[in-house]
Each structure stands twice: as structure tokens, then as C-alpha cells.
């Protein structure tokens, strides 16, 4: 059974997508994002080849906030 991924151009077979994962350290947070691009051969979607069709994001809070003070970012 082919797994599909929800994108701005609909549910697309995962095999028709490629993704890149990016990481950015912003001090108190670590940001991970995954950008999905269409690479399929569906004639109806040819205009979307190479286009980013989905982006996920994870924000990891390294530390919370203490009553002893607040952090200027």
C-alpha cells in the first residue's frame, strides 16, 4: 500500500516527493523543518515539479522560564 502525504496539491504518494530537513539553533530554541518538493510524473501536476508543496516545523524549547528571571533573546 502506497503511503500518501498531505500537501498543497493534494494527497501525493510519498514516492513522488523528496524532502530536505533543515536545522537552526536559535539559542533557547532548536528549529527543525522539513520541506517537501514534488518530483512525480503525473501530467496533471507537472507544473509543480520542483515546487515546495509542504513544510513541517518543530520548535524545541531547550529550557523553559524561571521565576528568577527572564531571558532576552
Amino acid at each position, binding site marked *: 500500500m502506497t503511503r500518501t502525504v*498531505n*500537501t*498543497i496539491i493534494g494527497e501525493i504518494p510519498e514516492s513522488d516527493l523528496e524532502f530536505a530537513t533543515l536545522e*537552526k539553533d*536559535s*539559542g*533557547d*530554541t532548536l*528549529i527543525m*523543518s*522539513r520541506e*517537501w518538493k514534488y518530483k512525480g510524473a503525473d501530467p496533471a501536476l507537472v507544473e509543480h515539479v520542483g515546487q*515546495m*508543496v*509542504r*513544510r*513541517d*516545523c*518543530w*520548535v*524545541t*524549547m*531547550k*529550557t*523553559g*522560564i*524561571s*521565576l*528568577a528571571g*527572564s*531571558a*532576552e*533573546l
Partner: protein
Amino acid sequence: MTQALCTSFKVEMLQAQHNFAASGGHTFKIALFKAAKVLNAGTQTYNATDEVAASGTYSAGGLILTNVDPSADGTTGMVTFSGNPQWTGVTFTDCTQALIYNHSQGDTAVAVLDFGGNQAVTAGTFIINLPSATATTALLRFI
């Protein structure tokens, strides 16, 4: 912007107006905001101005956090909510910060979280991984 515990929350804690208990505690929520929203220690209540637009599983007001009984680690009192807030099928072009607030107490502000910049999401999943409940990392710490 400034990541902070809200000053009004500090006062309200001394007035016993917030209860984080897992059983019988208040309902705390987390909402997401655009860069234009001014959130800082002076924020007193939640309002929807400059909140990210409803999209996917995100709706105005954000989502309810799962309370965990506050605990101690050494001399630090602390609490981190259970699970990581997440929304699926969302599209945000401008999402830079979040507000945790007490929905049971008139939406009074608790803390402001800064994402360290704009975090765009397109038809995807947005997750906030909350910090571990330790004396040096817990989400809310009373040292």
C-alpha cells in the same frame, strides 16, 4: 521580543489564582501569534489580535495543555505540561511566538514563548517540543 513569565502571573500565583494540578487543576491553553503581536512580561490576558489564522487543526485560542502535577527537583519547584502541542494540516506564513494562558481564570496570561524567528508551515505539522521537567529546563520553574 522577550521570553518571560508574565508579571501579572507572578502576582496571581501569590494570590493562589492558578492551579496546575493534574486532577482538579485549571485549564491552560497555548495560542500561536504573528510577529506583530506584542507579547512580553507585561502581557496580562490572551486576546486574538494577531493570532495566527485558523488552519488545519488550529483554531482561535489554540489548544488545551495537559496538566501534570507540579513537582520539585532539589530546591526548584517546577511544572512542564504533558505531551507536545501540535497541529496538523496547518499553513502559517507568520508564526513567531506563543502565549500560555489560564482559560479557567479569564484567560489570564502565564508565559510567553519565543520561537527565535518566524516559523512558516505549509500544509504541514507544527510541533512545539516542551522542555524536560528538570530543575534547569522545566517549562515553568520557581528557583
